[in-house]
């Protein structure tokens, strides 16, 4: 083997041929596993032309499903937003024992299967559950009704905002807040004028991911919904029902709206990352 002079560049990279083969394999993998499924959603939805596509979306049940999905997200996301800010404030601005345990517990819903996330509420609020008989006597229906869907959605999206904010606020420390307080600001003023502007991008990022998951959740919602058409069907559940009825065009039409939501989410996520640098990237989930 001839030992020629090696530049610093060649010591850190592979021969051109190897590089191109690796890039080709990577592109092939991403096209097969990610691009093709995405394209399929839209081609299947438009298989019978634009008219069938829009007719499927204008269907009463489809509109009810879209409405329910928006309603559920409109309740679940703000609640988790408030919780996320509260939890991040307590965890990032103070020191106390048991903090890492608390963070692990906040992250817990991510390691629970969506189906089990639904099941736990059935066990709690279902007619055979702990609180179900009592609640049904009072005239409250939670399982197989909208409150159950909202609860299951809150559970699966529980950690999103908090885990975006905690590292961000820990990094920022407490100097600015302490300065504001020493200068005479009240706690609320400090939060609104100092902390919130500092965390706004991270907060938006968390809300974005939280919302995408809230609107797209399938497993947990499927267990608690009861699948009553026009009443307790969210968009993902409606996709399933139409698909199982072999109404593929309509199913993919509703699915295409969810796919668009995902693409817009990723686009906005990219914009936020570009705005604040790459620090936030890769925590999404």
């Amino acid at each position, binding site marked *: 083997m001839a030992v020629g002079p090696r530049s610093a560049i060649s010591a850190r990279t592979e021969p051109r041929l190897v590089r191109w083969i690796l890039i080709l394999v990577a592109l092939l993998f991403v096209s097969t596993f990610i691009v093709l499924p995405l394209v399929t959603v839209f081609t299947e939805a438009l298989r019978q032309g634009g008219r069938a596509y829009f007719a499927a979306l204008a269907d009463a049940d489809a509109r009810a499903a879209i409405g329910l999905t928006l309603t559920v997200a409109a309740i679940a996301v703000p609640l988790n937003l408030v919780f996320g800010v509260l939890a991040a404030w307590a965890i990032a601005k103070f020191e106390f024992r048991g903090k890492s345990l608390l963070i692990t517990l906040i992250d817990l819903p991510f390691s629970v299967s969506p189906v089990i996330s639904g099941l736990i509420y059935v066990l709690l609020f279902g007619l055979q559950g702990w609180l179900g008989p009592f609640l049904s006597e009072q005239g409250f229906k939670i399982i197989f009704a909208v409150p159950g869907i909202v609860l299951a959605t809150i559970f699966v999206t529980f950690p999103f905002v908090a885990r975006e904010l905690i590292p961000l606020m820990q990094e920022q420390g407490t100097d600015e807040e302490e300065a504001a307080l020493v200068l005479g600001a009240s706690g609320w003023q400090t939060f609104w004028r100092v902390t919130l502007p500092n965390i706004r991008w991270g907060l938006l990022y968390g809300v974005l991911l939280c919302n995408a998951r809230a609107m*797209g959740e399938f497993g947990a919602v499927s267990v608690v919904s009861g699948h009553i058409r026009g009443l307790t069907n969210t968009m*993902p559940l409606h996709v399933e029902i139409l698909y199982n009825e072999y109404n593929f065009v309509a199913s993919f039409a509703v699915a295409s709206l969810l796919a668009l939501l995902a693409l817009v989410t990723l686009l906005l996520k990219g914009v936020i990352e570009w705005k604040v640098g790459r620090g936030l990237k890769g925590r999404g989930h």
Partner: protein
Amino acid sequence: MSSSALLDRAPARGHDPSQRADARVETLALTQALPPISADETPPRGTVVSSVPWRPRSIIPGFGLTLGLTLAWLGLIVMLPLVALFARAASLDTQRFIDTVLSDRVLAALQLSFGASLAAGVANAVFGSLLAWVLVRYRFPGRRLVDALIDVPFALPTAVAGIALTALYAENGWLGAPLAELGIKVAFTPVGVFVALVFISLPFVVRTIEPVLEDLSPEIEEAAACLGASRWQTIRRVIFPTLFPALATGFALAFARAVGEYGSVIFIAGNLPMVSEIAPLLIVIKLEEYAYGEATAVAAVMLMISFALLLAINLLQRWSRRHLERR
């Protein structure tokens, strides 16, 4: 600082490991509002623990309010229902619990769920590392787009992924048709389960390895090359050991996600009992049959395995952080 599994998947970014360690010491000192302790005046361990109160004093208001509300909300939404599940599982007749979990159908479903997740995790460890390597090290047209596309499985609702993959791999689909001519059936077989799980768990490995690869200092590779190592030796002996903790964490995260996955799998799997029926689906079936006890038993077993995995991920992360700090 935190032992959370998912919060800080990868170690904090910094150009140089020692710098990063310094920054961490600084933030630690800041948040604790304690002076940094230099190595030579470290007091004996026991005294430190006993002298630190439950919470050091701070002039920032709202501790009681925010922690109280956090704990209340966490308790109501997460802890109470999970406790209800374990209480329910514990109240089941032991013999029935064992019979349920060890029945052929449940065992077959658990075996498929864990087997296919393991296979998908391995496939993603290989292709995910390759993708991370290509995205971090090479420059080619469309690189940023490919990098952005990696997050699609995180953002795309699972039901949408499920029907799209099924249409793609069905015998008349774009990929299913050519594969069928080769005699390979994907949709409605266990292979379909594997394909769906690869899709949903792909981003985990890529996103855990990428930051570590970016932080890798060029000097060690140059040093290896100067000392006469071939490129392959450098990759195998120098780069791979550095990446390994991140790879293991990414694999564990991907595996944990795949085991619980439901939406994307049930469409493509065909759901034949004993053949292509995954464990989460079996829970749903038991619920639809009003066999709440059996559903709870299967769920309890799956949860215990998930929590064991979570613990493993935590330990892995702690190990990888120590590993990086020692360097």
